[in-house]
């Protein structure tokens, strides 16, 4: 899941080198903290949170295959 989120974020931002994902893994859940450059936060959130919502949906759907509930937090 980490790689997927990193890929998506890096493809969307101006400063891909600043993208970092930290994972807190539990038995049934997975918290993914996405760090991007302060100037890129808008890019991963999008108008009315459209992009952030899409990222969450896709990561969640992908994690469900491993029987996990994924939560994506965006941090600048």
């Amino acid at each position, binding site marked *: 899941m980490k*790689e*997927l989120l990193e*890929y*998506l974020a890096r*493809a*969307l*931002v101006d400063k891909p080198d600043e993208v970092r994902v930290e994972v807190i893994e539990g038995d049934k859940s997975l918290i993914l903290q996405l760090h991007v450059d302060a100037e890129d936060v808008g*890019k991963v959130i*999008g108008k*009315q949170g*459209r*992009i952030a*919502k*899409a*990222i969450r*949906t*896709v990561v969640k*759907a*992908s994690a*469900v*295959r491993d029987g996990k509930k994924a939560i994506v937090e965006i941090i600048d």
Partner: protein
Amino acid sequence: MKNVIETEGETKEEAIEEALKELGVERDRANIEILEEPNKGLLGLRKSKARVRVTIVDHESMVVEVIEEMLKNFGVEAAIETRYEENYLWVTLSGESLSWMIGHHGQTLDAIQVLVGAIMGCKLKESARVIVDVEGYRERSQKEVRAMAERTVGKVLARGEAISLRPMNALERKLVHLVVAEYGGAKSSSIDTEPNRFVIISPA
């Protein structure tokens, strides 16, 4: 096939039309540069034509690359097929156990499409009209939406009162508007904001 062409015309529009015809593409797949503005001249002197350069934008290979990369990160293998339809690039994925990529009412698929569009937007600095489909899901759902729209227009006309449909994405709403316009006698409008935006059909 040629990718780039320079043409002349009395007006810019004329030159662009000519170039698009030569290249055989729609305007939204082309990058247009104005090389020279037309000059009407004075009393027939210094008259010059408009000159433009039109280049085909190859969205297709870029979109396929983005999707291949995404599939790799999903850890799935799928066959990718592309085609142009009504100015949209359709990308259809097929393979084993891809149904999770569709999700409830196509939610996951819509999200994947939003991300592909956004990533392409970053690469191109302009929006790309891409539709991502898995195992013909969108094609089937379009048929259903069309049938639902037709049934509903029939009801609206019979009862003389407005009926609202379930929330739909932009593409589905567009299809409903199209069906209503074809049918005649009724009008349609979109209400509320995404993701709850829906169409209401009422007597004209």
